[in-house]
């Protein structure tokens, strides 16, 4: 298992390099030399050259034959590995500071959203599975399909208009206290729970058709015991996959919710950086996001061995 973990951790390198390469290509190669933006509209050639030199934009993009590491992409990779995320072009702030400041607000939204949605989805899926084909099941499926069919943008706009602006049940915008988080979390849960309920229900119904369930029932085990003691445990692998793979998104933040509700988190930071072509912020969030994603996948694999002792990681 240790060898497996080491192997998977090593795989972070090519995956992250690939992600960075694509990002670098999009923003630096296609996007062009940022020195022109920094220098402004009245820039003299000398000032552009000097900014390019100071920031290393004058180096070859990928390969410097005289010194392979003295090119823009290798330098960027080296910086990111050292966790030196550079300075934002549009705010002139250290990107590491911006990320640090954005983490907590993001977690304030995404953590309750994630926990509530996961628990609620599992509970509703169990309920639907337990009462399969009854009106409760059918109603839940219809509601789940409806919930997942509506764009989260619609939820946000309707809720912000009616619940916040018109009825004044919640603040329209802001990050001043827990009450400011209620509406975004509520919207996030409603927008996300439908898909999860359907997925978990399917997983559980699939398990309920297995032989061991029939055997348990034949032995006189009650339906409730079968569901909670056997079905739920055996359904854990796909559920764990779904849950753990979602963990990186706690870090990346809720892009739309943060922007509409003024949560100064990492999602908002990322969206703004994309709009502004703020490449240092984009490189940093992409790098961290890809590392976390690979690690979360590894955590999923490890969790399988806990959920199902038959699984061995080699």
């Amino acid at each position, binding site marked *: 298992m240790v060898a497996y973990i080491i192997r998977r951790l090593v795989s972070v390198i090519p995956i992250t390099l690939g992600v960075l390469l694509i990002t670098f290509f999009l923003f630096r190669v296609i996007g062009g030399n940022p020195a*022109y933006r920094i220098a402004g509209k*009245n*820039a003299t*050639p000398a000032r*552009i050259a000097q900014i390019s030199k100071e920031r290393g934009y004058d180096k070859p993009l990928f390969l410097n034959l005289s010194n392979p590491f003295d090119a823009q992409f290798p330098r960027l990779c080296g910086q990111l590995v050292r966790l030196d995320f550079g300075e934002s072009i549009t705010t002139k702030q250290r990107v590491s500071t911006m990320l640090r400041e954005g983490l907590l*607000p993001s977690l304030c939204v995404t953590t309750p959203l994630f926990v509530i949605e996961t628990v609620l989805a599992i509970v509703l899926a169990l309920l639907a599975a337990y009462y399969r084909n009854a009106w409760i099941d059918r109603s839940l499926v219809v509601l789940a399909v409806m919930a997942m069919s509506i764009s989260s943008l619609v939820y946000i706009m309707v809720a912000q208009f009616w619940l916040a602006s018109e009825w004044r049940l919640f603040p329209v915008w802001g*990050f001043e206290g827990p009450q400011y988080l209620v509406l975004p979390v509520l919207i996030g849960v409603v927008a996300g729970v439908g898909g999860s309920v359907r997925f978990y229900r399917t997983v559980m119904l699939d398990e309920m058709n297995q032989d061991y369930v029939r055997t348990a029932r034949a032995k006189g085990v009650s339906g409730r015991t079968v569901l909670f003691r056997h079905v739920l445990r055996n359904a854990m692998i796909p559920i764990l996959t779904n849950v753990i793979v979602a963990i990186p998104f706690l870090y990346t933040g809720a892009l739309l919710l943060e922007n509409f509700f*003024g949560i100064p988190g990492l999602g908002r930071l990322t969206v703004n950086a994309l709009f502004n072509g703020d490449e240092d912020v984009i490189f940093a969030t992409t790098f961290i996001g890809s590392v976390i994603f690979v690690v979360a996948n590894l955590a999923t694999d490890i969790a399988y061995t806990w959920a199902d002792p038959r699984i061995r990681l080699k």
Partner: protein
Amino acid sequence: MTARRCVLALVVLTTLASAAGGAAETVLYGTGGDFKGFDPVDANDVESADQVGRVYEGLLEYSYLDRPYHVIPRLAAAMPEVAADGLTYTFKLKPGVRFPDDKCFPGGKGREVTADDFVYSWKRVLNPRLQSAGDWLFVNHVLGAEDWVKKWADAKAAVDYSDPIPGFQALDKYTLQIKLHRPYPQLLWVLTMQYTFVLPREAVDFYGAEFRNHPVGTGPFRLKAWRRNYRIEFERNPTFSGQTYPDTGDANDRAAGLLADAGKPLPLVDRIVEYDIREYYTTWQMFLGGQLFSAGINKDYFEKVIDPQLELTDTLKQRGIRLLKAPLLDIYYLGFNMLDPVVGKNKKLRQAFATAVNVPRYVEVITNNRHTPATSPIPPGIAGHVAKPYPYQFNLARAKQLLAEAGYPGGKDDQGRQLRLTMIMPGAGSTDVRQAADFYTEQLRAIGVDLVVQQLAGSEYLRREHEGETQIFWAVWVIDYPDAQNLLQLFYGPNKCPGVNATNYQNPAFDKLYDQIVSMPDSPERTALYEKMADIVVDDCVWALMTYPLSYGLFQPWFQNYKQHAFPYANWKYYKVLPH
């Protein structure tokens, strides 16, 4: 402050609300863009200039209400003495102006502003390590500035601010002298710009790299709290004094109540709270809820807010909301690269192109009538603008005829090949830009020209423009100061790429006139030359003129003293909110 300012002006939302009554008025404001902190050397975008303008000040500032624009002393005791040859400007500083208390000063006590502070602040603008976009204000104008920049750009050591620049002299504590290579009448405009605002060296030394986040200025407000990406709060600067609300303005200003506070000490509000709101939908909800003092009008909302007569809808009028619209001093245009073998050497082709674009239709479809068709490279409101018909107004038949005269009848060359032109626009992935691009493509197709529009990321667009790697480019010029020279420099031969003359236009007759006007003070003679120069570039069709933008802003009835201003960064001190 270029295209960004205009684009943002369409999206940005400004708002104020008051706390309950009395003197403790609070301005609540919503903005829509990142800014670079409070270091004046970085004030090269609208948001940064706005923030710097609240906490720092310079020698001069714009008179708030007067039009045409003119400058008045701010930290200068009076307008400068200018030597007869126009090469030396001597300023006397107001005595007793103090930096506020801050821990960067010995004992935490602020001190008086001196002439040395200005010299230091201006050297920072030139410091190559700080990468300020404001160096052009002084380089090639102030005696010794370019040598100083070169010396420290090449040096490995840190910049030594005691290294003198001959053109910046602190003659005594309150006397400041600027010496120039040649007359630079624009200097007075330039000294209103945020780059030139004064700051104490102690703050830079004390806070180091964090100085940009710890402003220590003489301005009307000081920073109280700041949560990046969310909220920023300013409070009245207790050491700000000596300025009152202006008592000069025209009859319209008086009728609009803009002179009601004449003589009152500034600022008129105690607090500014600004929220970083990026979604227009959210801004609109907050504006309607009375939480913001102002809102721009997003194009998607335009028809809900503005009626066909381009006035505010009755619903909003009934709420007491006011619509204020005014022309801006910017210009949108399509520039032709005069070094391009196809468009550069073929005036008839450029004229055909310009004549083929239905600008009134563009104004209606693409801008919601928030622009007006341009008729001169010098916008209205600036000396040199003459209101006369643009010679290349849309006329399809004439465009086809000009195209044929250009050697491309029906859009085909003499060998029957389709004429294909390429235009670049900034804004990769932007829907608005795509719509405009589609519009141009369709207009040119009507005369048989295949126009390929490339939407580029901002940096790449600027690179191509600077390097002259264009055939046709879409552009906007946001004027830096209200002097036509700022626009006419874009046609001056020696400024060609990689300078600001992105068209590479070179016309000896024009250049000769430019050499003449660049040193002339404001006068009827200079204005006449501006008009002549504008005629030359219009005749040569260096640009296909597009539009002049109008600002459209919605304001709550309790927000007072707002007058649209092309350079509004120091205007917060004049605004007022009524109890509501």
